[in-house]
């Protein structure tokens, strides 16, 4: 009985420490355009917080539409790969202390690897040009 209690205590402590080191992240695939509406009715305008931060960046687009969004956790020392579209995936490795290593895959091939700290509320934006003067963006946020 005592043995069982110690085991439960150890398990709960392990679970507790893993929780504190786990990063809660949110990835969004966005489409940047100067058009007022998205040609795809499934797309919705990006939220005001992200929109405001994108406005601060040296980007020329006035409107951003959300194509996909995924929330996911990454335990310390671990990694998680999320697919945002057929062609776009990001893998995030939790290096501890809010430090992450983000690898972006385009059509299955590694395009860029970014290592940085991402405190709560901060954003990492990966992006590139798309046809007709539009852009694709992956916004990674350390969720509250």
């Amino acid at each position, binding site marked *: 009985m005592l043995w069982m209690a110690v085991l439960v205590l150890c398990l709960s402590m392990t679970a507790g420490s893993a929780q504190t080191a786990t990063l809660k992240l949110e990835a969004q695939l966005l489409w940047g355009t100067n058009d007022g509406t998205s040609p795809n009715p499934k797309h919705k305008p990006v939220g005001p917080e992200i929109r405001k931060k994108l406005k601060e960046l040296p980007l*020329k687009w006035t409107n951003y539409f959300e194509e996909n969004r995924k929330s996911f956790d990454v335990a310390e020392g671990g990694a998680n790969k999320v697919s945002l579209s057929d062609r776009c995936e990001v893998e995030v490795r939790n290096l501890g202390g809010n430090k992450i290593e983000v690898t972006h895959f385009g059509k299955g091939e590694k395009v860029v690897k970014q290592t940085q700290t991402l405190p709560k509320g901060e954003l990492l934006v990966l992006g590139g040009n798309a046809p007709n003067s539009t852009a694709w963006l992956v916004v990674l946020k350390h969720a509250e």
Partner: protein
Amino acid sequence: MAEISHSSADDEALVREAQQGGLDAFEELVSRHRDRIYGRAYSMVRNEEEAMDLSQEAWVKGWQRLAQFQRESSFATWMTRIVINLCLDHLRKQKRQRSESLDALNEESGGVERLMPVLTVNPTERLERGELRQRIDSALNQLSHEHRTALVLHEFEEMEYKEIARVMGCSIGTVMSRLFYARRKLAVILADLKKSEAT
């Protein structure tokens, strides 16, 4: 050849060209309005080096946001709004770094100038224009950032209360209060300058 056409072009034409990516046209706009933009930054932060950095940052932001310029005001006014916003951000950051001083506590209540008797003699009458400018500048230098900003935006940028409240991120009541005590303090400083000159 291109330089000649730029220097003779009006702002409207230069903005159009800059919006198409013409950096030379934008350089001409910078050249035309740099004193105004730098001057507004200096009037708010009262530091030559900071004003220089902020005014240059404003031009960079202006370039980056050029597509958003809708011609609702003149280009110079639009640029002035950008530099004002940058200066306000800069002053807010500075304020966060400062410990709360007595000045800050007196910010809305007006401090000692609240108790000063109303001046009955104009302290600036019969002053030569250049001297008056110099004296106004010295007096503005002695105001807190918040009081000076309210005065600069109202008197020099001719903004209405509600517009000042919007850019300063405060209520109209706070703007009125800041403006009132800024004026009172300014009157007192100008009177003191007159007195010290007389003695």
